[in-house]
């Protein structure tokens, strides 16, 4: 342990050269821009800048690239809160309460809450990486297909049945998400599904296109009904908002801690930041005493998904470094970078490349601090965007959405789909079809199906595999508890009630 701390301080010395600090700021700023533009993800940014870094020493290069990653994690929240357009998949859950807050004129508060909790999540994950890396890496190895399915099952269960919409509409919407997720090639059999000979459909429906349409375009159409304005655009923006929000945050410490744990867990396994943010939001809604008010602009509803997403995003780097498996697409590109620099990610990296690993870990601390400073100072600026008149900002948003939809797959057809999803989003919202289950099913649908069918192959069709060891069994059980939570909580309440008079 002491050795680790020594190594970490050595790492700080490596990371703290002026050159590296400069790279850090450049990286974070770039990352924020990438995070803001939907369709241009952290993976894009890193992939594109990777070649530029070959002329630097590996440690400097990875510092800059990982800082792009931190920046993108921060940046994803901005458009989610301001315009209901998630810049990154993991910021979808942030829109649920962040956007209503902005509509109420509390954009500054929502942004500050989001950035601060992102930072806390990341910090938690970095501390864990610093001290528990070997242990945690071994934990990740426990996850085979049945365990992955259990995780996805738990995510669905913690989210399902929360809405107040008509149950059949929830069902229809969720199943539509699953159906869209099934379009394209089936991993397990290699068959093309739901294509009907239309090869353009082969790439499937990317979740980002659906989200940009359903949330972004749909929201603009809804706003149009009420005339040419975004509601809440006239809110006053005061730099003091940061301090005021900080005063409110400590009371959500329990939510934060829980979200950190969920995030780290899913980041390591590697379930990824997106399920982490959904699950964390779902669980917070269940457990918080203000749970019923979630979706109407609760700060806690921003804290939960942002903390978890950032914790997951950060801890996803651990399996990459120690096992050589990337926890996210971004990590996958970073992994490619390591190989090109002649660094072999894997169990021996920590032994053979101490300078590099601890330099990277130190840069995680510093990069996140740099990121927080940068984004917080910009909060008034971001919030001021809302004051731009609607007839200027609306076409620009639509242009950015179109670009975003195109860049996902470089496909023109996706822009048409985006528009279609936009109309669907507008109609669904008015008819009380919930959007969240659709999006969740679209994100996790094929992954859940893959892992289920892999598990079935392994077990030769024996369902008992999902309760075959303590790990998968307990996750599944937890999922079932979540699924029947309304019943469980009623039961608990009646128990309490019966005890009280006695």
């Amino acid at each position, binding site marked *: 342990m002491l050795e680790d701390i020594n190594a970490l301080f050595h790492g700080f010395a490596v990371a703290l050269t002026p050159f590296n600090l400069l790279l850090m700021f450049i990286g974070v700023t770039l990352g924020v821009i990438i995070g803001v533009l939907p369709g*241009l993800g952290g993976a894009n940014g890193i992939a594109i800048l990777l070649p530029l870094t070959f002329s630097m020493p590996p440690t400097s290069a990875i510092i800059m690239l990982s800082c792009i990653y931190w920046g993108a994690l921060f940046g994803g929240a901005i458009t989610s809160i301001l315009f209901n357009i998630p810049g990154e998949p993991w910021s979808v859950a942030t829109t649920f309460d962040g956007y209503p807050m902005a509509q109420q004129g509390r954009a500054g508060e929502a942004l500050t809450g989001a950035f601060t909790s992102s930072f806390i999540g990341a910090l938690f994950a970095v501390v864990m990486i610093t001290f528990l890396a070997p242990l945690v890496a071994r934990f990740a190895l426990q996850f085979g297909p049945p365990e992955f399915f259990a995780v996805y099952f738990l995510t669905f269960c913690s989210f399902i049945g929360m809405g107040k919409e008509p149950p059949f509409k929830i069902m229809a919407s969720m*199943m*539509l998400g699953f159906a869209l997720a099934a379009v394209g090639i089936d991993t397990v059999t290699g068959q093309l599904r*739901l294509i*009907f000979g239309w090869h353009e459909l082969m790439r499937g429906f990317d979740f980002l296109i659906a989200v940009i349409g359903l949330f972004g375009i749909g929201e603009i159409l809804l706003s*149009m009904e009420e005339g040419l304005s975004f509601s809440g655009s006239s809110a006053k923006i005061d730099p003091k908002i940061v301090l005021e929000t900080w005063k409110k945050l400590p009371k959500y410490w329990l939510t934060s801690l829980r979200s950190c744990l969920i995030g780290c867990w899913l980041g390591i396994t590697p379930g990824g930041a997106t399920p982490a943010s959904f699950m964390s939001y779902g669980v917070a809604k269940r457990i918080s005493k203000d749970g019923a008010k979630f979706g109407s602009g609760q700060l806690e509803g921003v804290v939960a998904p942002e903390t978890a997403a950032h914790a997951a995003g950060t801890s996803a780097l651990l399996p990459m470094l120690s096992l050589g498996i990337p926890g996210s697409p971004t990590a996958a590109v970073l992994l490619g970078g390591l190989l090109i620099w002649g660094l072999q990610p894997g169990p021996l990296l920590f032994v053979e490349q101490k300078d590099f690993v601890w330099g990277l870990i130190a840069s995680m601390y510093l990069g996140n601090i740099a990121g927080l400073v940068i984004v917080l100072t910009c909060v008034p600026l971001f919030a001021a965007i809302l004051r731009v008149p609607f007839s*200027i900002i609306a076409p*620009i948003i639509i242009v950015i959405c179109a670009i975003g939809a195109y860049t996902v797959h470089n496909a023109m057809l996706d822009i048409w789909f985006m528009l279609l999803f936009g*109309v669907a989003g507008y109609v669904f919202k008015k008819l009380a079809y919930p959007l969240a289950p659709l999006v969740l099913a679209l994100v996790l649908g094929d992954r859940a199906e893959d892992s289920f069918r892999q598990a079935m192959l392994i077990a*030769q069709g024996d369902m008992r595999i999902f309760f075959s060891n303590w790990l998968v069994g307990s996750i599944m059980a937890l999922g079932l508890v979540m699924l029947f939570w309304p019943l469980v909580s009623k039961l608990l309440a009646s128990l309490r009630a019966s005890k009280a008079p006695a």
Partner: protein
Amino acid sequence: MEEHNESTGVPGAGISTSAVEILVSLIFLLIGGIVVFDSFRLGASWSSDGPQAGYFPFYIGFIICVASLVILGQTLFGKSGRSGKVFVEWSALKQVLSVLLPAAVYVVGIQLFGIYLASAVYIAAFMIWLGNYSWFKSIALGVAVSITGFLTFEIWFQVPLYKGVFDPLGFLGY
């Protein structure tokens, strides 16, 4: 879609919610049917080593069908009290279409002339017609956004965006 011209100005009138509700549930029914149909082609049973490729899609499609039928039934025969409600007033629909139709034209524009040119025109046109800004301001901003986009994507991030069937900016060499 074109009837909005006739009855504008009558407050409170508009497309009825139940009509839209029926339409949407019929669309869902269609989608569900398509999914079920395709899953039979793929094989929708449970083979010895787990579900086949069409197993889950079959149930997904099936549930979509059931859910849409229930919603359809509720709308047609239910006492949901919604039937009299208005989904969108004509005046509001006009507003919505005033964004949606140009957006569709914009996408056609992208298809033909590429993202940059179409975006500049779209932003300028939106500002002139819906925002009543001066021609100069609108065109300046439209062009500025497009140029910023060009610099960001083509040059800085090296992400080639769609150039359109006619590629009018092809002379730039990107």
